[in-house]
Each structure stands twice: as C-alpha cells, then as structure tokens.
C-alpha cells in the first residue's frame, strides 16, 4: 500500500497547485491561460460528475476498442517475435520492414483504413494493432535472443527438441521482456484508439472529444482526457500485477 502513497501525493500536489493557479487567477492573468483554454480541476470534476453517464458510455466503447486492439497486437507481436527468432532468414528479411512500419504517419493512414474497413471497429483495431505490436515484438525478440547459450547446450544434451527448448528455456527467459513491451504497448493503445475514432466513428471518447473541441466545451474535453488517462494507468497497473503473478522468479 505504501508504494502508492508517493505517486498519489505527487498527483494531489500537482492538482492542488493547478486548482490554486486557476482560482487565484494566476493562470488566466499572469500566464494568459484563460479558463476556456485550461479549465480548473474543480470544473473538470464537476463535468465528470454531471456528464458521468455520457462519459461512461463513450468510455466503454473506446475501452472495447483498446482491449480488442491490444489483443490483436499481442498475438501479432508475439507471433512475429517467435517467427523472427526461429528463422534467421525471416529476421533479416522482415526486421527492417517491421521498423519501417512505425514511420507510417497514423494521421495519413487512418482515413485510408476507414475507406477499406468502413466505419466499424475494424480500422480502430488495425491502428491500435499497428502502433502496439512493435514494442511487443522488439522487446520479446530481444528477450528470446538473450537466452544463455550454455543453457541451450545443456538442454540439448537432455534430449530437448527445438520446441522443448523454445517452451522451457527461451519463452520463460523472454517473458519479462514481453511484459515490458506489453506495458509500453497498452499505454500507447489509448492514443491509437482516439486516432482511429477521429477518422470515422459515431461513438467513443475520441468522437466525443472532437465534438467538444468544435463546440468549445473545454471542461468536458479535459474530462474525456482524464478518463482516457485513467484507463491507460489502470491497464498498465493490471499488466504489472499480472507480471508479478506470472514471473515469479525475479
């Protein structure tokens, strides 16, 4: 419990300072950040309460996209890592392409994906998977390659097949690395979902944010951002918890 005290205290201090800066007029008059640019935490809290069902409904839509998209990224990311690890040829052929895939500007790709897949959940999943598979693949691959060669030699003398080595030595070695990649991916998945919604959607927090931005509804815009941040933190924490349960030897 104690480990959460420090970050919670920092968060409370920052929010408190922010609230003070807005209510004393420091933000508006001295720093020229009026309330239609930066609302106060109390305004955001009020909006979170008043519009809680609207925010919750849209948050659920976006959360579904994130979970499914992250799932796709996980499957693809791990498959790539294992495939590129097992075959040197595949690795030399595809690793540069995998890196290049991250240079594609999402803003340009999102509308194209919408034209291909329509306005449903498809393009959102594609964008999230595109952004998120990369850290999973790179980290897991590094983990697989960090296996102790002597351990592999030893396993071979214990009649281990290639599959047994992968299963009993390489995969457990790579597991902490895979979790690192997954934690990075889940934090970025939230951004991917928003970009996907901006390209074409009828619901979701990204959709709501766009409407609120055009309508100059700054408090609810920031309220949506708050909910998205909370989602990212929660998912990250869940993964960290899972890691502690699964990786019991570190």
């Amino acid at each position, binding site marked *: 419990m104690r480990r959460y005290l*420090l970050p919670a*205290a*920092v968060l409370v*201090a*920052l929010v408190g*300072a922010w609230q003070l800066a807005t209510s004393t007029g420091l*933000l508006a008059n001295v*720093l*020229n*950040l*009026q309330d*239609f*640019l930066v609302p106060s935490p109390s305004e955001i809290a009020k909006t979170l309460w008043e519009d809680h069902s609207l925010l919750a409904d849209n948050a659920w839509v976006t959360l579904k996209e994130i979970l499914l998209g992250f799932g796709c990224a996980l499957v693809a990311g791990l498959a790539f890592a294992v495939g590129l690890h097992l075959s040197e040829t595949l690795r030399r052929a595809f690793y540069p392409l995998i890196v290049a895939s991250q240079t594609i500007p999402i803003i340009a790709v*999102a*509308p*194209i994906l*919408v*034209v291909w897949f*329509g*306005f449903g959940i498809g393009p959102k999943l594609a964008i999230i998977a595109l952004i998120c598979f990369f850290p999973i693949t790179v980290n897991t691959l590094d983990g697989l390659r960090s296996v102790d060669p002597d351990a592999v030699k030893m396993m071979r003398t214990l009649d281990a097949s290639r599959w047994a080595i992968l299963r009993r030595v390489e995969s457990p070695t790579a597991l902490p690395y895979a979790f690192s990649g997954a934690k990075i991916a889940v934090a970025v998945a939230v951004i991917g979902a928003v970009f996907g919604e*901006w*390209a*074409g*959607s*009828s619901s979701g927090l990204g*959709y709501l944010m*766009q*409407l609120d*931005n*055009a*309508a*100059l509804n700054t408090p609810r815009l920031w309220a949506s951002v708050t909910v998205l941040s909370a989602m990212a933190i929660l998912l990250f924490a869940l993964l960290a918890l899972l890691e502690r349960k699964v990786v019991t030897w570190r």
Partner: protein
Amino acid sequence: MKRTIKLLIAATVLFAALALAACGEKPENLNGQPQPFSLTLDFYPNPDHVGIYEAQKLGYFRDAGLDVTINSPTDPAAPIKEVAAGRSDLAISYEPELLLAREQGLDVKAVGALVDRPLTSLIWLKKSGIKRLGDLRGKTIATAGIPYQNAFLETILARANLKPSDVKTVNVGLNLLPAILGGRAQAMLGGFSNVEGIDLKLRHKDPTVTPVDQLGIPTYDELIFVAQASRLKDDSEPIRLFLAAMARGTAAAEKDPKGATQALLEQNHNLDPKLTAAEVKATLPVLSQASLKRPYGYMNQAEWQQFIGWMRDHGLILSLPTPPQVLTEELLPGSIPG
C-alpha cells in the same frame, strides 16, 4: 524524502516551463515602422483567402502601416480561442462558432464578414443514387464532428420528414472527401460549395451540392473576422486599417483572378493549380465586396438576429443576444468612427 523533493522540483520546473512558453506577447506600436499585426486563418490557406493574399502581395497592408503575419491552424476550433486569449489580433471564424464562443463567455466580437452567406453544403454524388432528400433514408452521411452542423442535419432531415434515426451519421472529422469518394458514405454535410463541391465536380463525380440555407437553415455569414472585444474600445485602429486593406485586396482579386490564384499558390504548395483556379473562380462571387449601398465586410443584423434565434431554438445556445452585442460594423471601411 530526498526523492520526494527532487520529484516536486522537477514537476514545478516542468510546470513553469510550460507556462512561460504559453505567455502571450502584446504587439508593440512602433512610430514610423509598420505595426506588427497577426491574423489567424480558419484553416490552411485556401481559395477563401485570396483577398488576403492579394492584399499581402500587392503591399496594401504595408500601405496601411501594418506588418501582417498570417498563421494557419491545424485545428479550426483554435483561432477564436487565440483571439480571445489575446494571442492573435484577428482570426477568421464562423458565425455559429462566434455565437457559441460568446455563450461560453469568450471575449470576442465579429468585426466584418469575409463570406456573407453559407458555404456549408449537403453533398451527394451521382453514384449514390440519391435524387431527393427523402432518398437519404437508410444511407450513411459523413459529418465533420461539429455539433451545430449536426443540428443543421436534423433540420434538413425534418424537411424530408426524416428523423435522425432514419439515417446513419458518422463523424469523420477532416476526412469528408475520402469518406464519400471511397463510397463508405453516400452523402456528406460540412464540405464547402466552393471547395469540396468544385473538387468533386472536377473529379467527374457529378455531385449535387446544396448550401444549407437552401435546405431550411436561415442564412448566416460562413466566414467572419473576429477580434478580442475588450481591445476594441481603445485599440481598434489597426483592425480598421486591416479591413480597409482587405477591401482593396478583394477588389484587386476580382479584377485579376489569375494573379490572385498565383498569390495563393505561392503560399500553399500543396494546392493543385488547376483545381485551385476553378475553386477561386467559384469563390470570388461569394466574397464580401464593397458596393454603393454596402461597405466591405457588411453584416446584415436582421439576418444575424434570425440565425441567433434558430441557434437558440435548437438548443445550441441558451441565451438570446442582440446583434450589437456580438458584432460591430464601426470598423468597416467607410463607416464613421463611433
């Protein structure tokens, strides 16, 4: 304890740095030198702005003693906020957005019209098979995610006895053209008659382009110049000079469409010359022009009153301001300073 202090210091430094970066600067008034003046466009440079770029190119702003910097935003909702916060002298915005901003308490006022009629249109292509409004039933309509335009759509559908649930609306943000070209949407609301309308025509897509004031929405000024209301008391002269130069620039563009197109192309290298020339041709007639009866930038207060009423009736605003509260005609060329 040490770590806590380090964290707090880091957070404070970060906060301060962000704040400093956001500090606005007030323009200086230099004697004998042209006065710096910032204009924020509504979007990237496009045919709606030919008058501005002609004035810039032909030196009309300099003649008026202004050193004009023209900025384009990536987010069309930002310019009005910049003006309200004093970070820009003038912005191009939209009549509905100005009314929403005033509702929120932003310190802004309209000082002149750039385009004094709606450009926002309902557009469908021949291939969609839609012939009348009623054919929209069951179709997918792409929107730009702007709530007042969604209200436009409700009004338009009501004319054809359709409810919002009779159609599928999708918010595609700035991606209206890909949505309709790709066939995912059969119609779109939010494109401009003089930009997307012309674009689709030149692509031989045979579009039906209907500005919203022909579909039951009262007329309004699509593009307006907006300034910070509180500065108009003491510091309105630069804006008056700007608008006077705009009148000259727009008149020059009317006389020389090719030159005006060229001035625009020099500012935005992403524009296709042939398409831009066609769009400029369609834009010049809708730009505000000085005439014998009306000054450049004229805003019709009766029409404004009617549109304000429509906004209130559709729940977009709660209050009912009078036109003099939201606009001023005192800075238009030829008007007597009040």
